[in-house]
């Protein structure tokens, strides 16, 4: 019972410190990702993985990779609290008529995780970014 209490308090204190980190204000994730330069490098790696990922590369056959990298960099910059203003299409419009499956969405997440690993982004910061992007699954996989 004592051991259980110790473990629970350890869990709660790590939770508290994680909470403190995320409450450091918007922009802290932007800085953790390496700001504009870091995000650009990250999206470069990510898009390169995605277009070579056999599970999903079919969806990107007609995509111009550099345009996608630029668009994603602007979006991530804005979403992570950076000073960018994304002016492109919303996620629902951007993925209209693509018939994206859940397994394909998950494959993309894995590619993003691999890219973040390569760029040395901490696991905690990775999850903070994923937590911002994850709700987009409703728009990306919208069926209409």
């Amino acid at each position, binding site marked *: 019972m004592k051991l259980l209490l110790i473990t629970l308090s350890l869990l709660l204190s790590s939770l508290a410190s994680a909470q403190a980190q995320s409450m450091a204000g918007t922009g802290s994730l932007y800085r953790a990702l390496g700001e504009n330069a870091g995000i650009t490098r990250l999206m470069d790696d990510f898009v390169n993985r995605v277009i070579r990922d056999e599970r999903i590369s079919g969806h990107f056959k*007609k995509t111009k990779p550099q*345009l996608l990298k630029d668009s994603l960099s602007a979006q991530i910059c804005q979403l992570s609290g950076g000073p960018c203003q994304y*002016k492109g*299409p919303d996620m629902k*419009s*951007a993925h*209209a*008529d*693509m018939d994206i499956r859940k397994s394909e969405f998950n494959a993309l997440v894995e590619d993003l995780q691999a890219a973040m690993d390569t760029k040395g982004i901490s696991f905690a910061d990775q999850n903070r970014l994923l937590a911002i992007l994850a709700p987009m699954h409703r728009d990306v996989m919208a*069926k209409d």
Partner: protein
Amino acid sequence: MKHPAFVFSVFYFFAFSAYAGTADFKVLDKEGKPLPDAVVVLYPHTPSAPVVPKTPIVIQQEKMRFVPAITVVPLGTRVRFTNMDTWDHHVRGTAESVKSAMSAQSDEPNFGLRLSAKAEGKTPSSADVLMDKAGTVLLGCHLHGSMRGHIFVTDSAWTAKTDAEGMAHFDQVPPGATQMRVWHPEDLLGQASQTLQITEQVWRSTVQLNVVPRRRRI
């Protein structure tokens, strides 16, 4: 006569009415279901050129789509591309030949239009293109690879697009030997034109294309 990819069944209806010379075509897909957005073109014994509209025909870019996706216009029409989205589009049009439809390569576009994003409360940006060659034009967007549309430029007054029930209707079709052609963007093999003998009656026939319908998940 039977063509492997082109199953043609004819049903005759005899109706003695004052409206002689109407023709109704029902177009079906590979599974026998109604195929909308197919273009039926008739070249009757006495042909007639289509009337060129005085004002441009508008094709909008809206929510990452060409609206309408398939537009039928008479030869000589001005088509106006209008960007209704809040982001830029770079519309490209390529005249399709049989060769380009079947090969994986994309031809050099015949026209490219940079249309800037629509600002709230302001008029959208647009540009006109003259459709001066009969045939089909494939529309795309350089910025957004998934955008796809078609323009069918016709030189016959008897051209119609099938509706949701796959029906195309023609009035006042002159009797006699008539060339009929059916086109659909996903009918990659293409159709040989068929000769019909239209008499002064209500003409009805069904055409089945080798088109696999795009399955939409519910």
